[in-house]
């Protein structure tokens, strides 16, 4: 080690990389692992029932998922409406 690097230190700051990676790893595991709460399928079904009153929609067109970022949870609902399908009349 040269005198200069000993004096001023030239070390890689890898801890920040570790933290960033862990944030992603943990967020992902919580999404497809244990933290996916069991109300999601029920929520998806109820949404489907409500929306079907107004538009024609297939079950797979509604996607519900929970994601964690830092200190908050995001409930993401994706509904794909098929343009060609005519709206069904409200009952």
């Amino acid at each position, binding site marked *: 080690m040269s005198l200069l690097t*000993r*004096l001023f*230190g030239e070390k890689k*700051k890898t801890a*920040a990389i*570790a933290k960033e990676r*862990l944030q992603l*790893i*943990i967020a992902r595991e919580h999404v497809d692992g*244990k933290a996916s709460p069991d109300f999601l399928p029920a929520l998806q079904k109820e949404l489907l029932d409500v929306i079907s009153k107004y538009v024609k929609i297939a079950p797979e067109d509604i996607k519900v998922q929970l994601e964690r970022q830092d200190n908050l949870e995001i409930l993401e609902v994706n509904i794909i409406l098929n343009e060609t399908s005519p709206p069904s009349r409200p009952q």
Partner: protein
Amino acid sequence: MRIVVVTSGKGGVGKTTTSAAFASGLALRGFKTAVIDFDVGLRNLDLIMGCERRVVYDFVNVIQGDAKLTQALIKDKHADTLYILPASQTKDKEALTEEGVEKVMRELEAMGFDYVVCDSPAGIERGALMALLFADEAVVVTNPEVSSVRDSDRILGILQSKSRRAIEGREPVKEHLLVTRYSAKRVEEGEMLSYKDIQELLRVPLIGVIPESEAVLHASNQGVPAIHLKGTDVAEAYADVVSRFLGEDKPLRFVSYEKPSLIKRLFGST
């Protein structure tokens, strides 16, 4: 009686070192404490406690009805109210049955124990599941390292889904984060995750930080739990953990690093 599991998912992070020190610390405070080795097939708590030559019967013998619990419990030589229940060296982990473990816990309660500390094996299989099954509290031992933090996160998920408390919908297992093998110097230099980073990632209340220390090897060489090595940083850090566990307010120690002066850096001495 409270049952405390010391767990981690990942191997070699300091569970047995912690179980020995923590159980000894509770006993030094006057609590009647039992520490159980759940690492069936690979026992080493007896070595860390320095009682390997007094092992006659073990946990599996008791579960299988070959010995009475009172015959298998070994009285610790350093702390009056501490007892060790060693694991079997020969049997495999399948020998740990739910009913068997439950029976032992009931009996310990009837014997008037205040605390049972369960030293979990690594992994997330039978041995680890049995160690956490009856837990009221969990000490999750984590090293400042990516794989250890990830495994701690997994074991927290298991505590929240597979413990009796979780299955029966009772109040959840009380979780404590213990960061071990910590180097304040490397954290300061940006080379190691800080305890704050780890706590932010796992979101579990911190019960302590144990520094990386040569004293741990001296302790295991002699078969003396690290908390007994008077004047060492690990002994004091573990004593603080016990105090916080008992509800006392203790500021964190051994978590900051003073850069050596320029003169020291120029002329060495590390």
